[in-house]
């Protein structure tokens, strides 16, 4: 009986690192796939096409992470996935900045349009005043 228990413990001790490594590979795979999904979502969000190069970098890094995972270089995979997360966060904010920039440009365009209308109205007012004086009205 004691002998069986000793064998079991020995087997368990020997198989734990293998099990742990299998779990880490799955975890990294999930992280990489999540990041790929994030990249796809960000690309759809990027209607201003402000982060095309950054998304390319992200996808390149994710491919590299996948390769590293396949080589079971898990520590290096984590370094790359951490960078991918930071890149994704950056891209998200860059897209938001681009959207705000576009909105600002649209508003500024609207301002310019309104200013042009105001200038035309002022000119029309000036012309109307001249016409009024010409017709005998008071200045």
């Amino acid at each position: 009986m004691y002998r069986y228990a000793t064998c079991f413990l020995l087997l368990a001790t020997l198989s734990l690192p293998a099990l742990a490594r299998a779990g880490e590979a799955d975890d990294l795979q999930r992280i990489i796939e999540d990041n790929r999904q994030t990249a796809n979502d960000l690309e759809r969000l990027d209607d201003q096409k402000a982060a095309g190069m950054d998304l390319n970098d992200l996808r390149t890094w994710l491919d590299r992470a996948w390769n590293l995972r396949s080589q079971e270089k898990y520590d290096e995979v984590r370094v790359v996935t951490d960078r991918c997360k930071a890149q994704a966060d950056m891209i998200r904010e860059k897209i938001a900045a681009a959207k705000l920039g576009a909105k600002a440009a649209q508003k500024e365009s609207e301002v310019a349009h309104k200013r042009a209308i105001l200038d035309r109205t002022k000119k029309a007012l000036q012309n109307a005043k001249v016409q009024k004086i010409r017709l005998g009205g008071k200045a």
Partner: protein
Amino acid sequence: MIKITEGLSILPLAAALVLSQGCALKPKPSELEALEKLRATPSAAAALKLKSARAKPATALVKSSDELLARAQDKWRSSDLDEATDAALMGKAKLMHAIALADQDGAEQRIRQADDDLNDLADEQASVQKDLDAVNETIGLLNQTAQAKEEQKSIEAQMEADRKLAADKSETSDKISAAELALKTADTVQASTYAKAEYAAAADTLARAQAELQQGNFRGAQMSADIARKKAEEAVAAAQPIYAEKTKADDNRARADTLTREASTIAGVEVRRDARGALQRIVLMIPAEQLFTKKQSMITPGREAMLDPIATLMKKKEYQNYPVQIVGFADPHGNPSSLLPLTLARAQSVQTALMSRGVDSKRVMAAGQGGAEPISGGKDRNRNNRIEIIFLYQ
């Protein structure tokens, strides 16, 4: 020996080369260079100066990026290029994140500024538009006034034109009427007969004037009417003397006819008409025996009565202007020297008798012709003894 010496002298150089190769700095990774360049940009500096809620995360990101940059530089210096590259890439991601936050801040600031500008512009636009509307309204009123004035002027001009047209038409009608009147006046003196050329010219010109009036050519019509009137007046001037003379002759003839007719009704008087040169004569011949006894020059009493109707005739208003000769005649078969006084005396007797009956003496002239102008011979010789009362006219 020489070779050994030479080999010994090269040895330190080779050792130095090996050492220098081992300690030499490896080329800087491009990722590290990119991070260093990005960190030096104004955008990276701006990420540290934010004043919004993004200031804190942005500052933390820059700080983290700076730490990664330092680490990457360290790793590069220690020739651990992979670590250096990883750190540089992570640092760049964080720094770009911070810059994106700064860009968001800047964009939001631009949006706020644009919103403020839009509000200001809307206010100013409303104010200017209000002024413009007011001025345009005034212009509209002024235009209406000006238009009304123009219409008034137009109406007045039309009225003036109508008035002038009416005046022209009236003046033309007046001139044509004057010409027509002149032509009618010409008709009264029978100018168509006595001044044919002038009358025809006047009539033709008048017709032309009437045609021009119908055509609205008032100026031409007036000129034609004036010419027609002038021609008609010329026709009158030319025809009038002829017409007057003719009329007078006609009147005289008619009056003479009447006188002759009336004289013929007087009993015992024989009437004849003749002419002596330009003078016309109505001769009332009274046989001497009806007034006088043979060879007597005084009217036999009781026979003067036959002179009454003659005196009445002579006194009639229409015959008062006729000069009258009372001429005595005798039969030439007698003593001519006694016949002349006899016939004169008899004529004077008749003159006296007529004057006593109210005949104006200035009209009457008595004369004796003796045996001149006998009118009969033979058995009727006695008819030569006569008194002729002669009415003279032209």
